[in-house]
C-alpha cells in the first residue's frame, strides 16, 4: 500500500500548469483593464476625441442636416453639453447655454451641441420647449456618446473640443453664468 502511494506521487502535468497560469493571467488582465477604465473614466484632455455619430431631434438640426458625425465639425469649436430632462442642476444652466448660443450662432465658428443622456422623448421635448432652447440637440442613443466621453457619466457635463478635434476642457456640473462659458470658449480660440 505504501509503495503504491509512492508510485502515485506525481506533479501537476505541464499542460495543466500552462492552462492554470494562462487562465489566471487572462482573469487578471481582464480585471486590470476594468480597473484602468474605472480609474480613468473620462476622455483625456489634450487627446483627440474618438468620433461619434448622432441623429438630431427634429427641429433641432444643425445646418439642416439630420444626421452627422463629430468629425464633420472639424475646423469649428464644438461644445458638447450633456443633459437630461430629469436632471435638476441642468435646468439651472439651460438659459445660460441658450444665451451663449445666441452669441455664437451667427458666427458659425462655434457649435453648441446638446446631447440628451438617457431620457424619454416626451421629457426631452418638454425640457427643450420649457427653456426655449434652439441650439442643436440630439439624443445619446444607447449611451454611445457618453460612454466615449465619460463612462461614469453624471449630468450635466460639458466638453470643449477645439478646431482640431482635441478635447481641451471639461466642466463637470452646471455653469453659473454665461461669462463662464464664453471665457472657456475664448481660451480655446
Amino acid at each position, binding site marked *: *500500500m*505504501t509503495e503504491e*502511494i509512492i508510485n*502515485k*506521487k*506525481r*506533479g*501537476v502535468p505541464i499542460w495543466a*500548469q500552462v492552462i*492554470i*497560469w494562462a487562465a*489566471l493571467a487572462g*482573469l*487578471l488582465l*481582464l*480585471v*486590470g*483593464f*476594468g*480597473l484602468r*477604465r*474605472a*480609474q480613468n*473614466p473620462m476622455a483625456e484632455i489634450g487627446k483627440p476625441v474618438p468620433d461619434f455619430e448622432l441623429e438630431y431631434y427634429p427641429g433641432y438640426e444643425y445646418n439642416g442636416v439630420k444626421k452627422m458625425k463629430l468629425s464633420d465639425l472639424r475646423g469649428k469649436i464644438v461644445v458638447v453639453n450633456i443633459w437630461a430632462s430629469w436632471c435638476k442642476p441642468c435646468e439651472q444652466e439651460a438659459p445660460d447655454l441658450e444665451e451663449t448660443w445666441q452669441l455664437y450662432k451667427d458666427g458659425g465658428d462655434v457649435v453648441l451641441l446638446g446631447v440628451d443622456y438617457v431620457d424619454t422623448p416626451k421629457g426631452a421635448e418638454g425640457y427643450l420647449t420649457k427653456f426655449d432652447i434652439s441650439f442643436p440637440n440630439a439624443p445619446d442613443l*444607447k*449611451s454611445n456618446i457618453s*460612454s466615449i466621453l465619460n463612462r*461614469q457619466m453624471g449630468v450635466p457635463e460639458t466638453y470643449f473640443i477645439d478646431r482640431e478635434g482635441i478635447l481641451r476642457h471639461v466642466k463637470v456640473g452646471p455653469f453659473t453664468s454665461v461669462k463662464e462659458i464664453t471665457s472657456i470658449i475664448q481660451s480655446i480660440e
Partner: protein
Amino acid sequence: MFAEFGYGILVVSFLVAMYSLIAAVYGAIEKSAAMVESSRRAMLLTFPLLSLSAAALVYLLVNNHFEVAFVYEVTSRSMPTYLKVTAWWGGQAGSLLFWAWLLAAFTSAVTIRKWERDIEFLPWVIVVNSITLLFFLGMVVFYENPFTRFWLVGGSVEPHMFAPLNATLFAAPDGNGLNPLLRHPGMVIHPPMLYLGFVAYVIPYSFAMAALITGRTDDRWIRLTRRWSLWAWLFLSFGLVLGGRWAYDVLGWGGYWGWDPVEIAAFMPWLTGTAFLHSVMIQEKRGLFKHWNMILVILTYSLVIFGTFLTRSGVLSSVHAFANSPIGPFFMAFVSLTLVVSIALVIWRWPILQGETEMNSMLSREALFLLNNLLFMSVLVVCFWGVVSPLASELFTNQKVTLGPPFYERATAPIFAALMFLMGVAPLSAWGHSTIQTLGRAIWKSALAALVLTVILFITYTQNYIALIGFFLIALVLLVTLQEFWRAARARQRAQSENFFTALTRLMGRNRRRYGGYIIHISMMLMAIGILGIEIFQTETQGALAQGEQLNIEGYTVEYRELASWPDEGEGVNYTRAVVDVYENGIYLGELTPRIDYYFDSQQNMTIPGNRSTLKDDLYVLLVDWEPVSNAGATFKIYVNPLVNWMWIGSLLFFIGVIFAAWPDRDPAEEPVRAARKAHQSSAAD
C-alpha cells in the same frame, strides 16, 4: 491632537507588523526560535496598538470633529451616539481600519495559543497574517487615511494629514451624515458580521500556507483551524442573512436578495467555505482530497480579497459599491500576489499532497461529498462569471450589460435542487462503501412519505411543477434528517438503556459536528420553503387610491385611511406616513403604516414598508407616491410574499445549528475512526 495620535499609532502598527514579518521569515529560515518568539510578540502588540488608533477615531466621530474628513463624511450632529460609533465602518477609510483591527485581533488570538506540537507552523502563520495586515494598514496609512483633516490654504479647503504651509485647520459646522440607508439596525450589524467572517477566513488560509511551505501536509492544519472556519462561516452567513433582512425592511422592493454584484461578492466565499466545511470531513475521516481542501481554502481567502477588491475599487458599479477610490492598483497588486503565490505553492507541493487511502465506491459518502463540492463549485462558476463577464462585455463590445436575477436563477436553480437531493441521500451513505441497495433501503420510506406530501400539495396548494419538485426535495431532506435523529437516538436508547430524550441529547453532545450539521440541513430546508414561496408565489398590485378606496389582492383588502407628512428638524428627516386598514376576506386584521422618510442632508428617500407577517405569508405594503396638496390620493404598491417568514425562522435555527456545532468543547485528540485506521496503517507499514 487625537487625529495625529491615531495616525501616529497607525504608522507604528505598520512598522511593528513589518518587523514581525521580517523576524518571522528570518526566524523560520535560520531556525531561530528566539526570532520567531520575538516576531510573535510583535504580532501580539499590533492589536492593542490598533485598538488605540480605533479608539481615537471613535472619539473623533462621537465628538463631532468635523475638521477630520472622514468624520465629516459619515456623521452629522443630529445622529444619535450609537450611530456615530457605528459610522466607523460606514465609509471606506474607517472600514479598512476596522478590517485591520479585526485581523490584528484574530491573529493575536491565534498566536497566543500553545504551539508546542505545531511550532514549525508558527513563523509561516505569522508571515501570512502580517502580510495581510501590512496590506490593510498600508491602505489606511498611504491611501485612505481616516485621520486626514481639512485645512484652509489660501482661501480653499484641502484635505491633508499634516498642516501645509500657512494653513489653518478648517472645521465644517456640520457633517454630511451617514447614508440614511445605512442607519437601519440591520445595516449597523451587517457589515461587521461580514467582515468578521471575511477576516476569520484569513486564519485557515494562513495555516494552509504554513502547511504547504513546511511540507507538513497531514491534516493537522485542518484540525487546528476547523473551528475557525466554522466560526468564520457562521459570521459570514449571519452577515448575508442580515443583509437580506435589511434589504427586505428598508429597500422597499419586496425582496431580500437581488443578485447584485456586491451581494454575490459576499456570497462567493460562502459557497467555497461551505464546500470546504464538507470536504474537510473527508480528509479527517479518510485522508482523501488533500489537494482539494488546499484549493478550497485558497479559493475562499482569494474570493474574500477579490470580492473586497471588486466592490471597493470601483471596478464594479453597483448600488452598494464604494465610490471610486485610489486604492485600486494597490489592491489589484495584492490580489495578484495572493493568487500567484498560492497557486505556485500548491503546484510545488502537489506530489506530497496525495491521499492516504483509495476511494472505494462511487456511492460512498466521500464520493457524494465530492459531488456536493462539484455542485457548490458550479454555483460559484455561475456567480463568478456573472460578476466578471460584464467587464469582458465592456472590454470587447464597449457595451454595458446587466446580469439580473433571471440569469442567476435559471442557472443555479437546478444546481440547488441537486444539492438538496444530495442533502437527502448523503447522510444515509456510509464512509467507504455504499451500494444502491443499502441507500435504497435507507431512503424509501422517507421518499414515499415526501411523495405523498407532494401529491397532497398538488391537490390542495399548487400545480406549479417547479414548486412541487422543490417541496418534494424539502420534504425528503427533512424526513431523512429527522429519521437520522430518531434512528440514532433509538439505537442508543436500546444500547445504553436510557430514555429517549437523554439518549438524544447525549448522542448529539457526543457528535456535535454531525448533529449540528443536521440541524443546519433542517434550517436550510426551512429557508428553502421561504425562498420557494417568494420566488414562485409572490404576487403584487399597485394602484392610486382616494381616501376610503381599496385595493384587493389574494383575499386581502387594503383600504387607504389617511396620510400625514411632517418634518423632524432634529433628526433631519421628513416623514410621510400613510395609514391603511387591512382586511382578509372581510375580517378586519389591523392597520399598516407604510412611510417614506426623506433625509434633508443627503436628499434621499427611504421607502419603509408596512409589513404584516405570518407563517402563511407577508402582506408588504409600500407607499409609492402621494398628492402633496390635498392628501386625498396616494399610490400604494402591495406585495403578497407567501411563506417568506420561513426564511427568517430557518436562519434562526441555522445559527443555533452552527453554534451547536462550533461551540468549544474538549478537543478530542483524534477522531476514533481515523485513529483506528492510522494505527492500522502504521502496523501495516511495520
